[in-house]
Each structure stands twice: as structure tokens, then as C-alpha cells.
């Protein structure tokens, strides 16, 4: 199924929850609403015509316009087609619905995005920091992150 | 030898020290040699050379190791139960060393020529379990506890096949005194219990399958009792770090190892006495005598030590439940069949 067809289908089913899309890009992407991520992903996974059963990658993003976001790279083992989804949220209210109930793999990916960008995934079963220490200050991959002078009494920049 | 010494020294404590010393000297020398053998055998199996620099082919390396271990700081973890922690390795070694008392080294020398020798060895070597449990408990380390529990379960389970296999040999020879057992088998390789003992040919042939089975099981159970691969679960380094001796270092650690190596020889020696004619020569009267006896029993025992080393560096490790399964559901039923068969044949 081409990206255009996927987009049309999603638009027809979810209306406003599906935002802009760039279908002529190197890898076409579709933007979806951050409050209905789970519903849309569930649909994409369970609908036999899409059957996106494989979440290749889930990456946090800090966009140049100051918004945070998450990019999902989906793939279907049965149909061998791909699509990229994007969600965005504001810095002030960084909440995005979790998709870990749809794909088990999203669990750790979302924890990583939370760890690095401070994006809170609503309905996530176990949202803890994963790579940084539990007491690490701030979210390191945000573009405005300042490396602290000291971390637990250790001097950081050498 | 006891009479000879008694006539020279008379009844004094020196006599007992002199009688008790040879096994200790033997254990120490033997352990050094075996450490070297084990390293070399494993290395050559693995396309390596192992020790090459300390002495020709590294034969002085075990001595250097001992010197290093002697100099190491003797640490006791702060949260450990100190008296038990310190006592444990010595208890393990005592259990093993006590076993050597009834192990014959030649027709002329045995530490203590008691009538229940074989039984005594089985019984006294169980002290090792207490030592291992103590070590595990006193270390105050969860991995050590795991190791200690495993070793207790394992040694207790494998003592039964050992004792039953021993019974098979005892039924044929009719004595628990290891010297008598060996004298029974004198007169060449075909008189060994593993080949049915010095009995009429028909009886021997009938006994053969049972004695061979019992002998193999005795050896397997022996490997299990000394906690070596594939039965090295108590110190399974990939699971339990180092098991009961995780927290030990320096000389205490070395004593655990000494005990393990000594135990390897003990089980091999007992198996050799019971089934392979102990110190008796395989060629009848040729090359036999008290001194040749020492050679034969050490050679036989050491062959099985070598076999244990060989097995250790070849096989993977069993899991706990599989270990128990092997003992209770495979070895023991087989031995009951052996016991029954041997008894029947002997009665008929």
C-alpha cells in the first residue's frame, strides 16, 4: 500500500486527528494527534490491509521550532510496506499517548525518549529513566540542555 | 609399617604423627602436580600452551601460585560470621584428609587399617558438606548461599549412588576393609572386581555387566561429589559467581582448592581400590610388592584424576533439576538392579 493510500484511509477514519503529511519525501510521513496516538496505532496494527505489526524505531525529537515530538517508523511483516508517523507536543505540556500497549517494543523506546527529551508518555506502564541515572538533572538531548557543572559532586566538563 | 614403626619408636605420639604424615605430604605434592596437569591438559585441549616461563614448561608455576596465595591479604567480609567463615575451609579439608586415613597406599602402608574402611571413608567425607554449608552461610552473600544449598543437596544425593556402588563391590569381595578388598583381587587384571573378581568363569561373565555398571556409576557419582564439571553447580562461575567460595581469598581459598583436588584423588582412589585392584599389579606377581604397590595405586588413582580433568574441560554443566534427576531417577535405579543381580548370582 502506498503512503498516499494509507494517508487517505487514515484521514477518512480519524479526520482531524490526522494532520499534515509529506508524501513526496524520501520516506513519506504523516503527522498524527498526540492525544490519539494509541487509537491510530492500534488501528494501523490490527487492520488487515495495513498490518503494521513491527515498530522498527521510535525516536524522540526536539524540533527547531521549539516543539518536542516523537517519530514512529512502522513496518509490516506481511505486506512489506513502511510508513513514518509523527506526533508533536509543546515544551510546556510534553504529553503524548503511549503506544506500548500496541507494540511491546515501544516500552523501552518510550522510556528512552522520556529519559532524553522529557516527553511524558501517558498510560505507559513503567515510565522510568532508562539510560541516565535516576537522579540525572534535565533531559540531555533537548537542544537547550546545559551540561551541569557538577553531577553528584563530580566535576563534569573536562 | 605400623608394627615396624612401633618397634622402633615405641607407643608415643610421634608414632601417630609419623603414621598420619604420609597422606598429608602426598596431598600437598599431588595438589601441586595436579594444578599443573590441569592447566596443561586444558591448555592443550584448547590450542594453548599455558605456563611456559616459570621453569621448563612452567613446572614451577604451582609453587609460585602457592607463594602468591600465601602472601595475599586474608580478607574477611565485614558482614560475615567470622568464626564460621574462618573455620569452614579447614573443616572441608579435614573431611577430605580424614578420608585418606583409611585409603591404602600399598600393601605395607595404610593410615589406619580399620575393618570398616570403605564405610568410614563414605561417612567421614560427608563432613565436607558441613564445611561448604558453613562457608556459604557465613559469607553472608546470596550467591554463596545458593552455592552452599546446591552443594548440600548434591553431595547428599550422590552419596547414595556411591554407597550403593560400593556395596556391589563389597558383596563380591565380602569385606569393608579396603586392604582385604585389594588382597581379594590380587593376581592380575582379570581378578579385579570390575571384571567379576577371582571367581569361576561363568560367574564372572554373569557378573561383568553389573560390575562395570556399578564401577561407572561409582566414578560418575565421585565426580559429582567433588563438585566438578559437569556437576560443578555449587561453584558454577557463570551462574553463581563462585558459589560458596565467592567471598574467600588468599590461603583460605587455596585450602578449598586443595580440598577439592584431594577429594578428586580420594574418590578415584576408593574406586581404584574397590574395582581395580588397588595397589595390586595388573600382571599378577610381576612388578608387585609394597613399593610397586604405591606406584600402581597412585597410577590408577591418577588416571581417574586425569579423566576428571578431561571431562571437566569437555562437557557443559547440568542444571540443578537435571542433576537431581540423574542421581535419583537414573543412577540409583540402575544400582538397585546391579545389587539385585550381583546378589542373585552370588547366591546361586
Amino acid at each position: 500500500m502506498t503512503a498516499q493510500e494509507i494517508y487517505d484511509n487514515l484521514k477518512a477514519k480519524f479526520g482531524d486527528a490526522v494532520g499534515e503529511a509529506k508524501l513526496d519525501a524520501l520516506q513519506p510521513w504523516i503527522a498524527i494527534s498526540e492525544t490519539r496516538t494509541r487509537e491510530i496505532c492500534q488501528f494501523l496494527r490490527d487492520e488487515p490491509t495495513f498490518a503494521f505489526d513491527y515498530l522498527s524505531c521510535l525516536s524522540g525529537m526536539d524540533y527547531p521550532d521549539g516543539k518536542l515530538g516523537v517519530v514512529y517508523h512502522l513496518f509490516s511483516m506481511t505486506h512489506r510496506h513502511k510508513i513514518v508517523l509523527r506526533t508533536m507536543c509543546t515544551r510546556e505540556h510534553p504529553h503524548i499517548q503511549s503506544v506500548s500497549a500496541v507494540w511491546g517494543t515501544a516500552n523501552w523506546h518510550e522510556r528512552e525518549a522520556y529519559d532524553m527529551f522529557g516527553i511524558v508518555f501517558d498510560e505507559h506502564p513503567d515510565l522510568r529513566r532508562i539510560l541516565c541515572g535516576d537522579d540525572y538533572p534535565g533531559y540531555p538531548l533537548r537542544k537547550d540542555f546545559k551540561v551541569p557543572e557538577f553531577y553528584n559532586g563530580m566535576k563534569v566538563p573536562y | 609399617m605400623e608394627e615396624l614403626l612401633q618397634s622402633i619408636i615405641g607407643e608415643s605420639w610421634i608414632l601417630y604423627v609419623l603414621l598420619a604424615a604420609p597422606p598429608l605430604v602426598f596431598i600437598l605434592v599431588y595438589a601441586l602436580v595436579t594444578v599443573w596437569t590441569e592447566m596443561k591438559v586444558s591448555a592443550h585441549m584448547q590450542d594453548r600452551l599455558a605456563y611456559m616461563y616459570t621453569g621448563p614448561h612452567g613446572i614451577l608455576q604451582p609453587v609460585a601460585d602457592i607463594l602468591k596465595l600465601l602472601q595475599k591479604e586474608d580478607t574477611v567480609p565485614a558482614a560475615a560470621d567470622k568464626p564460621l567463615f574462618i573455620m569452614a575451609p579447614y573443616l572441608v579439608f579435614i573431611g577430605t584428609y580424614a578420608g585418606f586415613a583409611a585409603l591404602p597406599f600399598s600393601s605395607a602402608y595404610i593410615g589406619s587399617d580399620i575393618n570398616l574402611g570403605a564405610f568410614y571413608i563414605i561417612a567421614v567425607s560427608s563432613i565436607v558438606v558441613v564445611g561448604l554449608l558453613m562457608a556459604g552461610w557465613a559469607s553472608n552473600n546470596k550467591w554463596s548461599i545458593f552455592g552452599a544449598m546446591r552443594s548440600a543437596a548434591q553431595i547428599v544425593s550422590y552419596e547414595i549412588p556411591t554407597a550403593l556402588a560400593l556395596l556391589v563391590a563389597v558383596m563380591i569381595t565380602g569385606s569393608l576393609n579396603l586392604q582385604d578388598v585389594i588382597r581379594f583381587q590380587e593376581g592380575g587384571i582379570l581378578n579385579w572386581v570390575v571384571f567379576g573378581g577371582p571367581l569361576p568363569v561363568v560367574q564372572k561373565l554373569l557378573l561383568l555387566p553389573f560390575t562395570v555398571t556399578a564401577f561407572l556409576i561409582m566414578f560418575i557419582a565421585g565426580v559429582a561429589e567433588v563438585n566438578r564439571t559437569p556437576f560443578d553447580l555449587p561453584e558454577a562461575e557463570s551462574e553463581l559467581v563462585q558459589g560458596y567460595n565467592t567471598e574467600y581469598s588468599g590461603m583460605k581459598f587455596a585450602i578449598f582448592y586443595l580440598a577439592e583436588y584431594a577429594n578428586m584423588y580420594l574418590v578415584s582412589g576408593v574406586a581404584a581400590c574397590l574395582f581395580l585392584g588397588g595397589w595390586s599389579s595388573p600382571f599378577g606377581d610381576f612388578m608387585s610388592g609394597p613399593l610397586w604397590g604405591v606406584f600402581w595405586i597412585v597410577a590408577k588413582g591418577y588416571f581417574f584424576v586425569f579423566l576428571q580433568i578431561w571431562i571437566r574441560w569437555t562437557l557443559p554443566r547440568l542444571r540443578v533439576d537435571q542433576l537431581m534427576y540423574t542421581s535419583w531417577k537414573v543412577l540409583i535405579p540402575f544400582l538397585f538392579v546391579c545389587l539385585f543381580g550381583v546378589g542373585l548370582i552370588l547366591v546361586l
Partner: protein
Amino acid sequence: MKESRTLPTDYVSSPERTSSGRTLRTDEMILNMGPQHPSTHGVLRLELVVDGEIVVDVIPHIGYLHRCFEKHAEHMTNYQQVIPYADRMDYLSSMCNDWAYALAVEKLLKIEIPERVQYIRLIMAELQRIASHLIAVGTYAIDMGAFTPFLWCFRDRERILDLFEMTCGARLLYNYIWVGGVSHDLPPRFVEKTKDFCRDFRKTLKEVHDVLSYNEIFIKRTANVGVLPKDVAINYACSGPMLRGSGVDWDLRRDDPYGIYDRFEWAVQIGKGEAGTVGDCWDRYMVRMREMEESTKLIEQAVASIPEGNVQSAIPKRIRPEAGEVYVRSESPRGELGFYIVSDGTASPYRVKARAPAFVNLSVLSEISRGAMVADLVAIVGSVDIVLGEVDR
């Protein structure tokens, strides 16, 4: 911080009755396995809830080796500079990391790669796959208590490292595959030496099969242990031998082709459950063993037909891809290694996200090891074949 210590819902602690009729209360023990433990393959910490020897729950804790790969990548002044950092992610398969990263940047740049480079990359990646699988298999043998196959594996891995060393001077972190080409041409006698290696390597494989793969104890320890069903594997996005071990016929080298894998004859190996159930530890182990054989075939074919030519395509020293983003995946020895690169048109990447296969494969661990024994857990962790450098990045 939120702490989750919940037991699985289907677990019921069973109070046992003693002969006197009183209830014997048993309690679970919390056991820390790692970060310093012989068989966690690095600095992985597993928090185990154990009931005797039975593992009730496993909570993996990672991050002890986090070296901020993604942050470093954003701060480079050149796309090429990221490659040494990519090397250090999965330090057992650096060649494959380099290649995956180079593939992603090349896709952003839309450039063509010289023919000879394609061959060299394939040879290097497959040699690396063998080297990496050798470690996986060897350490797995140690996990199972067999020490000897481990050293046999290392002996042959040394020969691969020798080949790498004569090619690029490094034995572990190569920085060899660059965007647009490779750093050096192959040295003289490389081809013959590689052929020699392939010939001898088959013998090693047979030896390992003899002493380990079909060893009764080894089969008893690994068959039916840590069974990962097909649907769970896909749901958790497992990849590589992990996914193939569960019987999914899926290999990115064939199914999402890159390089020149389509020109050679080789087969994708999947777990068939010969020793137990499909998707058990033995299957995963066996997939790796068989993959090494396939890689040997690939190397032999590639070495025999390698063309002459340039080893660098004409690209500027300072790469400035046009703004855009790309997610490119390739088959590293551990599975789907993907790089998601966002470019804003400048000379340094705006965002680089590495989708590390070991990270994703490890996330399924607690799913497949509940109810196993402690010894089984070691078998399961070993069969996942993690490299903590990649899990933590």
C-alpha cells in the same frame, strides 16, 4: 522516580503445609545479578525476584555504559566524524555499525558507491558477522559451563582480527567504512588469506558442532528454555538471530536489500525447533552457527569475483546533505541496526538516533524468562547475545 516492583499477575506465592498442619511461609528473595557478574556479558544489572531457584520476575537495569552517542553525534562538525563513535556502539561488530551509518548518510546524499567498495564492504561485514557470532557462541558455551569451545572460537576470531588489522590497522574499532567509500584499499595478499581462513573455518565449525551443538547436556540445557513465540518476537520488534530463531523467515540483507547481497547465493537460516520448541535458546544458538556458514559462503563468492577500481567516491570533504530525514536499517550480527538521521542542511547532523538491535532484543527478556530457573536465565541472557555498548550507546 517511579518504581515498579509489581509481580506478574499470574504468579501466586504458594504457601506449603507442613506435616504438623501449620503453614510454612515462603518469601521471595531479591537478587541483584550484575552489574558485575560473569554472565551478564558486560554491565547489565538484572534485578531478580527469585523463589528458591525459580525466577519469578526479572527487571533489567541498563545505562551503566551510556556514553551519549546521540549527543556526541549532534555535536560533530562533520558527518564523517560520527563514524568513530558508531564504531564504539557495538564494539564487537564495528564494521557493521560503520556500514549502517554510512548507508544512512549516503541515502541522504543520494550518491552512488563504486563497485569495488560494495564488495569490500560486504566482505568486511560478513567477516565481522563471523567474528561477532564466534564471540556469541563462545561466550554462550562458557555460560553453559563448557570452556573449551570458547577458546576455539577465539582462536579463529583472532584470524579475522588479523585480516582487519592488515586492512586498516585496527583490531577492534576500525573506522574503516566511510561515507562514500572505505578508508584504504585492501592490502596485498588479503584475498588469499581470506580464502585460507574460509577453508580452515569450516573445520572449526564442525569441531564446535561436535563438542557443543549436539552435546546431550548442552541440548538439555538450552532446548525448550526461554521460548520466544513468533508473535511476541514481532510485537517486541526483535530482530536478527533472535527473530529468525523464532521461525520468522526474515533477514534485512535479503528482504530490505542493501549492498550487493542479491548477487550471491546464500540462504536465510531460521530456527526449526529441532531440539525442542521453535524459538528456544538452542534455536537461537543454532541460527548463529548456521549463519556463520552462510557468511563463509558469501565471503568466498565475493572474494572470488572482486573487481578492481576506486575505493572512494568523489564527495566533498565537508558533507552538507540537503534538509531531510531518513531511517536506514541494515542487518548487523545482532539484528536490525537502524540509523535515523535528520539533516537541517548544515555540515553536522541535527539528530542521529541509533536503533540498536541489542537494546530492543533485551527488552523482551523479562517476557521470556519468568518461571525459568536461575541457570536458565543465564542461558536466556546468553542466547539474546547483547553487547552492552550497544544497549546503552
